[in-house]
């Protein structure tokens, strides 16, 4: 009768979904694409044929050729090198923004759901308020106050994404709160922080991971849009949004200067979107029809 001695210690840390949440052909294609971009982001500086900011690497506005696969831009910079270099700020921005939103949103959501009462009321109001501002307007206002740049633009996007994480964290927390192991932990005299960290957080990890995947593509697109408007990394550095806006005037005469960065960027967002869509199907079983594809 020594069952007490066999009591399993509560699992440490955050538990990820038991099954690898993305499977199927579409998801595999998307994952390999993202992996390719990550490799490009890491190896970028070592594999570009030219220095990305080297003016006059070739003739100005030369069409794609064997020397310059993606052609050159108005200053004679090699487009292929610039497209590869731009992967890094693009991925970093999405990563910063989503990490920031995930961290803050989760804390707000768990606190609102777990503490309830006045806390819940106040925190939920703040979240509703953030939801009530048009997203880009909020991001641009934040940047107007803080200044532009990769980190500031990412933070602005992160602020925009906070309410989504907060809502889903709160909702999931509320449903976990009804489970008996929360009451059990309380009866054992565990503190509120301990319960939130060891019981709530691991149990709401799954929807949060899915939300992260969905938001990566939003953040990616938002950063490029902000960079297009001139709020991203400072000009000589390569960045999809600013490359496209700088080449806008050559769109009619030399369409490839816009086309290559645009294609590279759209494929990246598409890969994130596909992952997000597969994940969304798992979050929202209503829309699940064919298993995982």
């Amino acid at each position, binding site marked *: 009768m020594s069952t007490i001695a066999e009591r399993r210690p509560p699992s440490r840390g955050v538990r990820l979904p038991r099954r690898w949440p993305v499977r199927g052909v579409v998801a595999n294609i998307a994952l390999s694409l993202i992996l390719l971009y990550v490799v490009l982001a890491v190896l970028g500086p070592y594999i570009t044929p030219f220095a990305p900011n080297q003016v006059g690497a070739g003739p100005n506005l030369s069409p794609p050729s064997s020397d310059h696969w993606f052609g050159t831009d108005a200053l004679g910079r090699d487009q292929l090198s610039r497209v590869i270099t731009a992967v890094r700020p693009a991925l970093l921005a999405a990563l910063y923004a989503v990490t920031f939103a995930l961290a803050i949103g989760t804390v707000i959501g768990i606190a609102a759901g777990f503490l309830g009462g006045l806390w819940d009321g106040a925190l939920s109001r703040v979240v509703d308020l953030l939801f009530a501002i048009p997203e880009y307007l909020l991001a641009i206002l934040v940047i*107007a*106050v803080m200044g532009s740049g990769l980190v500031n633009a990412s933070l602005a996007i992160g602020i925009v994404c906070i309410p989504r994480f907060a809502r889903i964290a709160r909702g999931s927390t509320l449903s976990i709160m009804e489970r008996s192991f929360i009451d059990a932990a309380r009866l054992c005299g565990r503190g509120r922080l301990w319960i939130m960290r060891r019981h709530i957080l691991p149990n709401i990890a799954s929807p949060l991971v899915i939300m992260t995947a969905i938001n990566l593509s939003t953040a990616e697109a938002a950063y490029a849009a902000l960079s297009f408007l001139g709020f991203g990394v400072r000009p000589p550095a390569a960045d999809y949004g600013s490359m*496209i806006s700088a080449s806008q005037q050559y*769109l009619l005469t030399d369409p490839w200067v816009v086309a290559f960065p645009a294609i590279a960027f759209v494929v990246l967002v598409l890969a994130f979107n596909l992952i997000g869509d597969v994940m969304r199907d798992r979050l929202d079983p209503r*829309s699940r029809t*064919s298993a995982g*594809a």
Partner: protein
Amino acid sequence: MLLYLSKKLAGAFGVLLVLSALIFFAGRGLVPGNLATAIAGAKASPETIAAITHDLGLDKPIYQQYLDWLTAAFRGDLGTSPISSQANVDVIAQQTPISLELSLMGLLIAVVIGIPVGVMAASRAGSGTDWGIRVPLLVVFAFPAFVSGSAALYLGTQYLTNLYSASYIPFSEDPMANLQTMLLPALAVGVPTAPLVTQMTRSSMIEVLSQPFIATARTNGIAEWRITYVYALRAALPPVLTLIGFIFGLLVGGLFIVEEIFSLPGLGRGVLSSISSRDFSQVTAQALVMAGAFILGNLLVDLALPFVDRRILRK
């Protein structure tokens, strides 16, 4: 019904009030350092700076400045820009119709494409047709406004020259010429938004189609198209309507970019130029109108919901 309406109205008003404060202080944060010095220039004499400070009411405490601004805003006076010395209301009155037309047209395009396609995908859920619809839409959805806008501009000036003219003409002067300018920008905003509508319509319809009253309708021998488009679609609409309110906000974001690409003198471009000229007074007014329009859009959706679905009032 009245209770529901007044609750929603009060909520929207409260949000707008808090937002006005946020926007006011964000506008003040736009200019680093002393506003008066920034306006007068670095070489201005202390007397000029003191005069400007007094004119703008900057010598009062900041909450007093906010309250003054707020009461003026209630009277419809959004201030005068100290940079361009134009009344902000006049500037906004010129910019708003363009942005409003653009976002309404974009919304219309998104809904006209999104809902029927979503219904089609839902009634054949899981089949090849379903995937044949979803995958292309996901691809379209990956096109951000600045890519779709560039593409539309390229098409418009290169191939569809009859369809597009670059100079903006107000709708009241010449509706056809106005549409000629606005159609492509509206497509650039609307088409990439359509997949969102499709996705929501599809998942909401799938849920409704599995409910007993649909089976009952089928056993009563009602035609399948009638069941899908009349019975099921109506029950599936509320979440789609809510999403449309949300999309209105996304469209506002699209405005910044599409107006920039097509050089349309609307609100989005106005905000950007106010920010770059550090015109805090004008940007505050423009942001307030934008946020107000978004809140109004969501309020209208909330008010329309009970007419689509009576069950909402019973909650």
